[in-house]
């Protein structure tokens, strides 16, 4: 699998606190990577470094072989990196299609005016939902939707930008068991389409169900990075708590 992003010897300091300590990580094309660790282990600092929110104190970050210094999330988005936020960043009072296109609406000409092209946006959203095999209707309000459908809307936003890497922050934290299954199916759909997905999760069963590889962080260090098939929930738990030092 070709490497999409390569982080080498990344260090991130916040004053005297070393949040990331010499972390190296490859993100491969078409791979689902589980990122696990306790609170404060450096997971979100790592994710925010990948997503351009933070610039590393030292170390190199390369995308498709070229070193980059991302200036912010918008810059990261231009490089094909999208984040699906934990709180989803979705407007309940708008339709699914309006949410997918929020901030990048398709406009059409009406005489001298430029107006929203509802039809094109609905058609394109429907295509994306079909690709994701989600039953979400573009013209329905998000407030009437299930947790799984809302995730589909959030993920559809990333599909619009033709992203290559999608970072998902605790996508299954606040939804029902049945909806978790729906979201995991969506992650596999993204993988089928050649996307790399980084799943940040506390839920062991989710990680073991969809991930190809698991990375465990503890106290700012990467303590494990191995194919999921060669690990076990017991081992990962031990790595997270520190009962097992490295693996």
């Amino acid at each position: 699998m070709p490497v999409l992003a390569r982080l080498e010897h990344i260090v991130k300091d916040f004053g005297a606190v070393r949040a990331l300590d010499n972390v190296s990580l490859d993100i491969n094309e078409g791979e689902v990577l589980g990122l696990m660790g306790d609170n404060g282990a450096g997971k979100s600092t790592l994710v925010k470094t990948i997503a351009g929110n933070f610039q590393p104190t030292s170390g190199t970050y390369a995308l498709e072989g070229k070193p980059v210094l991302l200036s912010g999330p918008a810059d990261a988005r231009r490089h094909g990196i999208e984040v699906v936020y934990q709180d989803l960043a979705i407007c309940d009072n708008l339709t699914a299609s309006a949410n997918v296109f929020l901030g990048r609406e398709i406009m059409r000409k009406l005489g001298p005016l430029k107006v929203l092209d509802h039809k094109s946006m609905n058609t394109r959203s429907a295509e994306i939902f079909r690709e994701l095999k989600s039953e979400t209707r573009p013209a329905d309000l998000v407030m009437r939707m299930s947790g799984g459908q809302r995730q589909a809307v959030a993920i559809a936003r990333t599909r619009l930008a033709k992203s290559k890497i999608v970072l998902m922050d605790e996508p299954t934290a606040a939804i029902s068991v049945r909806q978790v299954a729906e979201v995991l199916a969506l992650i596999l759909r993204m993988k089928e389409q050649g996307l790399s997905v980084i799943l940040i999760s506390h839920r062991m069963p989710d990680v073991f169900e969809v991930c190809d590889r698991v990375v465990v962080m503890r106290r700012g260090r990467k303590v494990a990075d191995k194919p999921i098939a060669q690990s076990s929930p017991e081992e990962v738990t031990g790595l997270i708590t520190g009962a097992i030092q490295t693996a």
Partner: protein
Amino acid sequence: MSAPDDHPGMEIDLLKGSSRTLLNRVLLAQETWIAIAILVLGLVVSMIAPKFATPGNLLNIFQNACFIGIMAIGMTPVIISGGIDISVGSILGMCGVTLGIVLNADMPLVVGIVATLAMGVLCGAVNGTIIAYVKLPPFIVTLATLSIGRSLALVLTNNQVFYEFGRASDAIVALGGGYTLGLPNVVYALVIGVIVLHFLLTMSRWGRYLFAIGGNEPAARLSGIPVDLIKISAYAFSGFMVAVTAIFLVGWLGAVTNSIGTGYELQVIASTVIGGASLTGGFGSALGAGIGAILVETIRNALLLAGVNPFWQGTFVGCFILAAVLLERIRSVRR
């Protein structure tokens, strides 16, 4: 809901949208229910007071409702964005006083209109700028400007009443109190206002972003929407509509006192809320604001003609506000 591994819904056309028919949607709209309330109220009152259903009185209701209605149209984008503007009565005072001073100085009507509109937009933009950039709650900011605006109107006029409008005298009275094709001019202003705002809310990026900000402001920011500018523009739009009201109201009254517009904010907000706008943001419509204003004015007029002591008006309007908000809640459960 189906499990992810079977998709019985996939053969249906996703683009068909919800299965609701047009009739169903009309029946679910707040505007429909308010219109029905107006009709029922009108029928009941016309049985008690035969004078109610005369063309003259109905036109009178419509004309009176227009002043509040135009301001309610301005209030709607503000409320949709999750804000509130309780300074509209004082902005009306500032705009009326501006028009009075400019016309009193023997300026042409066009200059007066431009100055008044500029004053309205300026007042609104000041509200919006403080709310967006200083990040104080809209209620507090506009409570402050309510006080400041009324006070400045007194300072500017030195408690003087303007009834001399120089060479624009006839023109301003003809504009505000006159008729075109059998209808008061202000009615056209309301109708144009409803159509323009409806277009903006449903077809423009501006409208879409207002709803997004009212629905989830952090999400709107993450999507790259210029949230602060959109908020300022909403308050400036409100100020603009207040200025339009001021021009018609001054022409209709034929004079400007510095107390013009005092207490209007409650009627304006009541109209907007009765018309289906949600004070928590994210919902509201242009037609709702107009129809809400007509309901409020119908209640006032009906009570007067039915011989009810006018002291009761506030009680009735208050009950309708509660009923409208309850109706909104029931509808949102059903949809």
